């Protein structure tokens, strides 16, 4: 940096002046564009970073198979303007742009499909993309919400150069439906800029970066809107113009950290990146020495896998709440068995029992050539109950959980359930199926009219009623909102046999009576 002298034209942010013939900025389409190599000269950089930017990730995280025929957009539910975060190509063609208020977007495209942004889904997708990047290098770093960085210098030879690596990256994404823009640069920050700008360039030399600045719009910095607006008011539209501002003046006005950011991009100061760690799971295959045609024949191999799993879990002091067993066949899709546990387990005992139940009920569709056991994400295992007094209760719970697991494995998941009352006037909807032991009871008003314990699944016509009405009517007229409007007068009646019945008549009175329940 030159010495600062106020009278002179100021020392600029970038030492090298912009080449007179800077290539005109052309915005590449967002689809998969193979990066082009930028002119290479000078010294090679020590690191090379691949940036993959997914401009529509908030949308793609929600609608993986979004049909391009329909305009779709994602909004931020927390935003009072409900501004569009991003939209698909069709919506863009119809004039929707990110930042547009929802009301305005709907005025433009009344049939717009609108989804609310889901950060969790976005994070999960970015996580998946991190795995994709791991094919090139172990050093992968995430730049949420929508960019993946990977240090690829060491892998270039393996893939046949930067261009080839990018092409390989793009082709492995094709078919995923994701709109990606890839770039390679000597610094992670510069790679981010290039990828966000959608220029699709591979730059391998640090000294080539300033020459590209004129092609990088301010937007690729992703600075706060007010900072970008303030710069735009000064007539600054791209990085080249930005870099020509005096350093001290810039830092005083926009903050030293912004200056550092620019320096990091241009390779003038280091910017360490945090490495992305992929969560572990157990995933092992085992080929059978000879093909198995019965479940029993699978047992030895299964035992080995389960023993490995147990060791794996013990080593990490972790438990799992579920797993998947694939039975591999020759020239056939694997048979997949999924197991979910009522409580997280850290030893193979309960898994072994459950697998045996399932395999016993699962006829093999073809001979099995191998097995693959894959655990769900690892859970930190809670320490065992320490209190002596608690022990009985805890063991009780555990026993209940095991019973449930076994009943469900044997009868099917749906066959075992709990029942919970629901705040609703229509008797047939006043209860709901819940997970066994789940849900909390609601408070029915004390003065509420009586309800029978045994309800018929469907009210039955009740022709031969000769009892005596003892109370009623209780008029129930409600439920219009879901198409099951009920209009009935209910009565409690005794039969001659002394059974108390709950019967009703439709309103306005038709000719029939219906039996709906029996009091216990």
């Amino acid at each position: 940096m030159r010495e600062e002298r106020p009278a002179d034209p100021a020392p600029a942010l970038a030492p090298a002046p912009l080449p007179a013939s800077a290539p005109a900025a052309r915005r590449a389409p967002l689809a998969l564009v193979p990066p082009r190599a930028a002119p290479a000269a000078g010294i090679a950089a020590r690191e090379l970073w691949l940036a993959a930017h997914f401009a529509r990730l908030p949308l793609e995280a929600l609608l993986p198979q979004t049909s391009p025929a329909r305009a779709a957009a994602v909004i931020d539910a927390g935003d009072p303007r409900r501004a569009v975060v991003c939209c698909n190509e069709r919506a863009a063609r119809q004039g929707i742009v990110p930042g547009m208020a929802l009301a305005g977007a709907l005025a433009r495209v009344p049939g717009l499909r609108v989804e609310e942004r889901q950060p969790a889904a976005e994070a999960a997708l970015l996580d998946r993309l991190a795995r994709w990047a791991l094919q090139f290098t172990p050093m992968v770093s995430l730049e949420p919400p929508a960019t993946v960085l990977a240090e690829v210098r060491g892998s270039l030879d393996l893939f046949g150069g930067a261009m080839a690596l990018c092409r390989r990256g793009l082709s492995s994404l094709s078919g995923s439906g994701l709109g990606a823009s890839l770039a390679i640069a000597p610094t992670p920050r510069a790679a981010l800029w290039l990828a966000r700008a959608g220029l699709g360039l591979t730059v391998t030399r640090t000294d080539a970066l300033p020459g590209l600045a004129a092609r990088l719009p301010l937007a690729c910095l992703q600075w706060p809107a007010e900072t970008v607006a303030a710069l735009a008011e000064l007539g600054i539209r791209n990085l080249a113009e930005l870099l020509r501002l005096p350093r001290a003046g810039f830092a005083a006005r926009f903050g030293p950290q912004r200056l550092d950011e620019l320096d990091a991009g241009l390779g003038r100061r280091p910017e360490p990146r945090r490495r992305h760690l992929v969560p572990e799971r157990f995933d092992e295959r085992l080929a059978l020495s000879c093909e198995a045609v019965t479940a029993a024949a699978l047992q030895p191999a299964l035992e080995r896998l389960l023993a490995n799993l147990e060791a794996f879990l013990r080593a990490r002091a972790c438990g799992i709440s579920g797993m998947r067993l694939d039975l591999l066949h020759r020239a056939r899709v694997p048979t997949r068995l999924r197991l979910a546990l009522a409580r997280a387990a850290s030893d193979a005992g309960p898994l072994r029992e459950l697998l045996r139940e399932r395999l016993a009920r699962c006829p093999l569709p073809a001979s099995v050539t191998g097995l693959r056991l894959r655990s769900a994400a690892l859970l930190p295992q809670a320490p065992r109950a320490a209190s002596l007094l608690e022990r009985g209760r805890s063991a009780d719970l555990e026993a209940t959980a095991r019973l449930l697991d076994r009943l469900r494995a044997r009868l099917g998941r749906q066959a075992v359930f709990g029942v919970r009352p629901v705040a609703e006037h229509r008797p047939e909807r006043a209860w709901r199926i819940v997970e066994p032991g789940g849900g909390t009871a609601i408070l029915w008003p004390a003065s509420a009219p009586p309800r029978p314990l045994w309800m018929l699944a469907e009210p039955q016509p009740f022709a031969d009623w000769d009892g005596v009405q003892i109370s009623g009517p209780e008029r129930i007229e409600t439920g219009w909102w879901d198409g099951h409007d009920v209009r009935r007068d209910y009565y409690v009646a005794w039969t001659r046999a002394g059974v108390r019945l709950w019967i009703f008549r439709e309103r306005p009175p038709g000719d029939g009576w219906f039996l709906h329940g029996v009091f216990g």
Partner: protein
Amino acid sequence: MAYAELHCLSNFTFLRGASHPEELVRRARELGYAALALTDECSLAGVVRAHAAARAAGLPLLVGSEFALADGPRLVALAASRRGYGALARFITRGRRAAAKGRYRLARADLAAGLEDCLALWLPGATPGAEEGAWLAERFPGRLWLAVELLTTGTDRARLAELLTLARSLGLPAVAAGDVHMHQRRRRALQDTLTAVRLKTTVARAGLALYPNGERVLRPLSRLAELYPPELLEATLEIAARCRFALDELRYEYPEEVVPVGTTPAAHLRRLVAEGEARRWPGGTPPAVAALIGRELALIAELGYERYFLTVHDLVAFARGRDILCQGRGSAANSAACYALGITEVDPARMNLLFERFLSRERNEPPDIDVDFEHERREEVIQYLYAKYGRARAALTATVICYRPKSAVRDVGKALGLDPAQVERLASAMQWWDGREIEDGRIREAGFELANPLIARTLALTRELQGFPRHLSQHTGGFVISRGSLEELVPIENAAMPERTVIQWDKDDLDQLGLLKVDVLGLGMLSAIRRALALLSPPRGRGLRFQDIPPEDPAVYDMICRADTVGVFQIESRAQMAMLPRLKPRCYYDLVIEVAIVRPGPIQGQMVHPYLRRRSGEEPVVYPGPEVESVLSRTLGVPIFQEQVMQLAMVAADFTPGEADQLRRAMAAWKRRGGLEPFEAKLKGRLRAKGYSQEFADRIFQQILGFGDYGFPESHAASFALLVYVSAWLKHYEPAAFCCALLNSQPMGFYAPAQLVRDARTHGVTVRGADANTSAVDSTLEDAESGAPALRLGLGLVRGLSRAGAERLVAARGEGYRTIAELARRAALPRHDLAALARAGALAGLAGHRRRAGWEVLGVEPERPLAPSPLRAEGLPLLRPPFEGADIVADYRALGLTLGRHPVALLRPALAAGGWLTALAVAGLPDGAAVRTGGIVVTRQRPGPAGGVVFVTLEDETGYVNLVIWSRIADAERRALIGARLLGVTGRMQRQGEVRHVVVDTLEDRSALLGSLQAPARDFR
């Protein structure tokens, strides 16, 4: 058997009651009820409507209210007398004032002394506590009943037995009641929906908060007889008979203090009028006027309205004393007496036919005077009213805010569980300009299937909910002033603004009861006129007063006939401008007609074209009968004013004045509530019977429909026409002062500052930019070489600059600022104010172009009192001056206008290559010529009843092009029409004399050409 319902909520118990008060009254009458009590929860907001409906239906109405005490029983209180009514109103006020807007809080302590002259029903809870009943019985000795409400819940019999036992043990009589929430059972769905909205949940999730059945309805007598023992039903009649109060007793409670001690109202009014006459006619009152005044005073005396006129006079006299420009309007205002009193400036000598609707002996109608004040000084007048009558006796009236399609669909949609994006989309489908009707086509266009039951339910409920009162808001200026304590007349509640209160009745309610109300309204044009006159007073001008403006100046009318009226009061709108060259106003009364004729009423009633044809002599002026001639001769046989329709009904169809008055009220309401059918039959039948043709009868009725919501009375038009003339005169003779005054009175009128300034410049006014070293906060006039004053834009136009900052800047300026840092320091301006000045180019004198100024502003250090900021040595950036286009964009952003070239001028080469004509070239095209043109969208307007036509005005560097877009094309090209800032069109020229439109065939959004240019377009609904 007979029954009176004593516990009944209307939809004025917001989000509980599911029927209008009128519906309840009519249904109770149909069912043969002996009486109905309206008992909205801690509210009397619906009683006047119920009262009017009950009087029409011949049903006794009881006035009451339901309360839930915070620490105790629920009860219904019913007013037995005027005193009881006063106590009830006071009690409601107490509860409402103790809580935030829309809520109330009452506890046992508030009811410790009971409510005198009120009867009470105790509403026991699910497990009734005898203690509550005993406590209430002490408060209402001999006036408390235990209400038994049987709602078919399956436990009715047990409940009845339990309550009767309880009543016996407490020695209380029991009475039947219905807890009525709706007039018909089919409102059940709506009632559930309201419950969900109230609880901010969905109907499906509301669960047991919903009522299990629809029994809270006005039930047939036969059914009640099955449910209740006869003595409980008879008790309802006993209570109804003891409630002897009717709202009619509240009539005409006018204030006393406007009359000095020792004189009578009549004598005092007579004296004030005589003083006024001496002022108005220094040479003596003309005999005709004197006779008129005599007749008016006699009528006022006969009807006992002196104190009303004295009250208004007092208000106007106060404003005059403070130099606040004001003007009264309305039927009573345009009287010779009011002219003498200074309430209006409409000279009876110039308007000899106007007073027929002044006041009528037979019509049971209180006088009606609205007074317009300068909009920025209206608050002073309001404070005067409060000071003079006290907060206990003067209050703002309420405006009942009702559900409109958009708000209704939002609430219904949410209650039915539509997701927020769907609700938003449905709402936006109803937004298309005028949202009165819910059009199926729009719903379908928004991607909804009408056959989908959920959508069908949503729409059906939305239609039902539309027009339901939603909350009470503050009227813009309707004041009620009472003789005694206001809170014994009508409950008062907290408004949204702190320290503001509002009564529970709106203007129509007060009108119905004949209470004194004065509209203290704000009118921007009065502010602008006063400002223009002030600019013209010494030293710059000659010291003009409103009254001194020379009347009937032909040069002013020439300008009006050319439709050169940007900024002129009322006649500046697109539709008015189109009318001016056809109507060619040449005198004051022509302006009165001009103001009234371009209204939806006359347009819908198809009165405009006949009037124009008759005026231009293309059609003979004929009358279907002599009575009609007497009414319509001043408008060439075409009814234009609301008064004329009333008079026609009286003279041609023999309506009594009372009937005509009912017709007027029905007219105003039919769009919302219907109810004109009886009048249609009566009117047409009588016209036919008197020998008028069926065609004439049909046309008159059509015209009545047209007047509906939009009818414009001659008495208002007369006052407005004066302001039209005065503002036109100012525009013609003092364009710089006029534009300056308009800029300083913004927001007002149809045009944004950009159009006003452009118009002033085309009229030769020199306009100078906003500048930190010369501009004041307001725009000002400066001397210029030409002799005519130049207009200097004020700092107030700078967007984003705080008012306080601008004021500090001007106050601290002294000899002027030399640098931005000095300005920042001396005026103590925060960074965002400085940035606003830089963006507006107002720092050009200190720092050069706006980018340099922007850089410097960003570098200004915030003041640190202890450590003076050191001079920092830093380099100067190389910032290019902005291009012309960018400069213009920045001007629009920062000021809303540019003094540079018109943005379209910059695009002209590209547009000309595309074959676009300039506005100037379009103006010269012959009728029927094909047109291709375009420009910046200045206004978009879809007048309600104009058959769906959209009017758009485009602006380019040479002038304006007016577009007519038929609804077929507007709907097909909706996106371009709503979204475009730069609009290109093709179409055909249509010209009739001076009136020119382009009837559009195709339109395209060319906004992309503007880049980021943001020209302000104003959408009118």
